[in-house]
């Protein structure tokens, strides 16, 4: 049962204004931020993911839902900071060095955020050194790398090597994705997982965390 049915519906329908209003109303009625996330927002994004897998929703619906979810999170974050509440899992995400495409990465980031993970987005054209620095500083459990171009895919391997060299590889699970990327390639370069789409990426992160 969703803590706020209005918030759940607003996210499912990709309506940012309604999500914002529903969050304000729920907070005014005494709902706690983490409760709203776990009981309304995460279930809504799970349903969005299910509809995507069923080919009833498409990428635009994922993004609208993500936008609605963020409009709610924007209200909740300051309250969580003030009360010392934290999301349990941290994910660092970025498009690899030499690649400026960030749409796929943004969709995955949005879905992960909507599923209750704290997402640290390093942006596009992220060097291996920057990934290493982010893992050192942020101490995430998961690193997600994206590449759209065949010419930039080798930077995924370079980044994994850089994490190994820095002695950080065993601290994180590394996931890769992007149009030319395959499961075979993930195995070849020593990544822990590959996801074909944003919705599946959420499931993959959950599975990897459960295994850890």
């Amino acid at each position: 049962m969703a803590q706020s049915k209005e918030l759940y519906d607003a996210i499912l329908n990709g309506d940012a204004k309604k999500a914002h209003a529903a969050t304000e109303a729920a907070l005014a009625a005494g709902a706690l931020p983490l409760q709203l996330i776990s009981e309304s927002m995460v279930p809504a994004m799970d349903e969005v993911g299910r509809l995507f897998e069923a080919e009833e929703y498409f990428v635009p619906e994922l993004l609208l839902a993500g936008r609605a979810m963020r409009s709610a999170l924007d209200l909740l974050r300051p309250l969580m900071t003030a009360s010392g509440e934290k999301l349990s899992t941290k994910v660092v995400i970025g498009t690899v060095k030499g690649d400026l495409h960030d749409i796929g990465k943004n969709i995955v980031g949005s879905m992960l955020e909507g599923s209750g993970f704290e997402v640290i987005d390093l942006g596009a054209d992220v060097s291996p050194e920057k990934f290493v620095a982010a893992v050192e500083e942020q101490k995430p459990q998961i690193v997600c790398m994206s590449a759209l171009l065949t010419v930039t895919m080798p930077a995924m391997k370079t980044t994994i090597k850089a994490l190994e060299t820095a002695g950080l590889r065993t601290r994180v699970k590394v996931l890769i994705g992007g149009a030319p990327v395959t499961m075979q390639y993930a195995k070849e370069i020593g990544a822990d997982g590959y996801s074909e789409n944003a919705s599946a990426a959420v499931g993959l992160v959950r599975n990897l965390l459960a295994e850890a």
Partner: protein
Amino acid sequence: MDRKYYLDLAARGLRMPIGTDLVMHEESEPEKVRNDGEALARVIERAARRWGTPLAVPLMDLRLEKIDLLALAGISATDAETYHFGSPLDEATLTRMCGEQAVPVCAGSLARDEALAYIGTRPDLVPVGMAIGPFSLTTRLLADPITLAALAGSGVEAEDSEDVQLLWQCLRVSEAAVLRSVRSQIRNGAKAIMICEPTACSAFISPRQLKAGSNLFERLVMEPNLRLKAALEEAGCDLIFHDCGELIDLMVEAFAHRLHPVILSLGSSRKLWEDARLVPKDVVLYGNLPSKSFYSDGAMPVEEVVRRTEELVTNMKACGHPHIVGSECDVLFVPNAQDTIREKVDAMMSGAIAV
């Protein structure tokens, strides 16, 4: 040219990759070739001759029109690739960016045009131009184009949202930019132009919204491309339409029937022998072997390329639709994978000849 010319190429069993990038990377300094008209022309010619095609296709460099367009807004070529508009444009900027008289300024565009002029002097080659499509250029001008398109598709109008206003403004300046590029290429001898609209697909335009009655695909994709097609027709230049994105049938049908290109090039997510029912018989289908995976022997071993080529050739012969065997997109150079990519292009060129 006569549409029959392309139908004859298909009837003769022409096969060709879009492979100029591969050939360019055989040069000692490929990135210099990109901006050197004479050197680029030689590479384009060599690519056409290597694969025995009269269609001399340039690089599929879809950055050029954006660089030329943003130059009109005072943004340098260096910054152009990562630049996105964040708020609605003022009228003066819009007018400047839509100006008909602007000419290409970026080195890659100038080289492309110079190469076209050179190819025009080779009597056995057809100078083919290349441009990004208006919608795909629009998506490159925005940081979050899918969300903005989805907002527009949900019924939000420009008057209600600055984001949606910006989307329509970007489409307007993009159409003008593509038109300028196309006209410049025609002035330099292009007889056909490949318009590439890879983002005119279900990842950017929601089939759910279309099913619910949205006219978004019409407004964002078809209307500007129909005007582009009319401009090409007026200049006697043929349209080759390329879209390797994930498409739904109504998109394929609209491209095939309403844009009515001489060649329709689709990505490997489509089964061309099934798409043949959506495409008029006087439109040659091109493609669509999964060349984006050629770099990987694991994902796409050469045996699989041979198998898919045989399947494609057999099924296209069975359905009787004019077809040129080819790649799903441009076959890009990948460091340390050039040999396996070439092997697979060779397999595509020779597989199932006897069928």
